[in-house]
């Protein structure tokens, strides 16, 4: 006796012992199948406050679910599962289990900011999505996203020297994301760039990559900056 409407039940809600005998009765397989309900049993309304501590999500509570963000969204046109309005709603009620189901989609935001531009209530949906991503990383729900790793490499160099070195950032990023330096696009990019770049420029780039110069009078500015940022982050997460 198969469940006819099986497609209507998420696999993780099915419970079944393939082989089971109870009080001498063989009830293996579908004879003991149980389905767990899909009812939402509670809100976690504190989640809204948690999320609002992340930069970008401060205005999430203003949303009235008009749908302008989703309708204007670049990604939604590609993927109907990509629905900023819906995530904002889930965030407000703290339906985190539902949010987590979309953990592999939310990062697809291309930061075009059309949603933020169109929102009649200044919710800044793009910022909410970024905040959600960072919350998920902090919770260990998703691994650190490539964009976060890139950001970290970038800021680390700022703290140290008050400036970045493109080559160095790329090197660090590829190293930390365990990617090969010999990306075809990068090779092609370097090849074409070297054709057009004046020799003096190329030399300076090469030199900077090795010497890694600091911004003038940087001193311990980087240290102060880094301390400030981490304090800010701490205060967001308590």
């Amino acid at each position: 006796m198969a469940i006819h409407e099986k497609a209507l039940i998420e696999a993780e809600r099915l419970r079944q012992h393939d082989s089971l005998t109870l009080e001498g009765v063989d009830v293996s397989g579908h004879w003991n199948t149980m389905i767990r309900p899909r009812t939402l049993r509670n809100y976690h309304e504190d989640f809204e406050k948690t999320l609002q501590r992340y930069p970008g999500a401060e205005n999430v509570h203003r949303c009235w679910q008009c749908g302008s963000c989703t309708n204007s969204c670049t990604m939604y046109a590609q993927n109907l599962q990509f629905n900023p309005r819906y995530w904002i709603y889930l965030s407000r009620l703290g339906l985190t289990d539902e949010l987590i189901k979309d953990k592999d989609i939310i990062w697809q935001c291309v930061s075009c900011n059309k949603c933020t531009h169109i929102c009649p209530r200044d919710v800044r949906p793009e910022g909410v999505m970024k905040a959600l991503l960072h919350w998920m990383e902090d919770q260990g729900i998703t691994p650190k996203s490539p964009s976060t790793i890139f950001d970290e490499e970038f800021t680390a160099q700022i703290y140290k020297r008050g400036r970045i070195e493109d080559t160095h950032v790329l090197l660090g990023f590829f190293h930390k994301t365990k990617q090969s330096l010999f990306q075809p696009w990068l090779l092609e990019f370097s090849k074409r760039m070297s054709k057009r770049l004046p020799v003096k420029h190329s030399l300076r780039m090469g030199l900077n990559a090795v010497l890694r110069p600091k911004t003038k009078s940087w001193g311990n500015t980087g240290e102060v900056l880094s301390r400030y940022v981490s304090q800010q982050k701490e205060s967001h997460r308590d």
Partner: protein
Amino acid sequence: MQDTVLVVGAGPAGLSAAASVANAGYQAVLVEKETVLGGAPILSGYAKLVPSGEWAKEAIGRMIHNVEAHPRISVHKGAQVERFGGEPGQFSATLSTGQTVSAGATILATGFTHFDSVNKPEWGFGTFEDVITTSQMEQMVASGKITCPSDGRVPERVAILLCVGSRDRQIGREWCSKICCTVSANLAIEIKELSPQTEVFIYYMDIRTFGLYEDRFYWKSQEEFKTKFVKARIAEITASGDGRLLLKGEDTLVKRPIMIPFDLVVHAIGMDPNLDNPRLAQTFGITLQHHGYLERAEFYTNPCGTTRPGVYACGAAYGPETIDDSIAQGAAAASRAMADLHALAKAG
């Protein structure tokens, strides 16, 4: 006789009509069946009014004071019109007190009746102590403390259910009661002001805070007071067994059934036609529309008139209405009544 207007009902619309009549130099006779004036805002003890934010006792009280102090208004409290006859320009009404009133025109400001939530038994009013109505919530706000009636604890979560006794064919209420969305948003603000630790959820199908009520109440309740709006109409309320209430619904945005615990549930009760309307229709010889409110004579050329010439109406007698519009309609009905009387006098 032609300089006297009989006003039936001393709520906001009736008080306004009587004051307008008297201020224009005509005589007003105000008949109120209750022993106090003020109508629903006073009798039901509303807290702060929409949209002014003034306490009902002060705002409506001012209207009452003006009427009671006016030399050209005579007030009959605890009285009803029992017999009514005559023509425009010369009506005669017999009151339950035995007195007779002669008037050239009559204005019915007979208002509405609050929906009685026991008519939606599956929503728990009358079954569970912690299910109350917006009127009762107003009282709680007025008393200065938000608590669960069952045991006096401060609620962690309050749910306000919209459209209780409105937009519901199951119980023959097919109209929108117009003001409950705004009143509920206002209550959410007031609850939060008194009890900052309480989370307020409003369950809605759609939000109808029309006109200037939008930002002042709906937006404000979200932006400043973090009220959560959930798109679901609740189907049933039951007790959870641990002293809390369970709301069963479908979150139509998440598209999943929900069963959420709450400490206190508030019914945003709608406006029924006045229970007296069938009797009023008979006494005054006027027609009711199919929902049981008073029928208008004509929407464009005679919006203040009933189906009987010389008998006018205003406010919630015609259908769900706000307090401020009721007051405006009271003035409009008064001016129409006096204009018609004036024309009659000129012709005669």
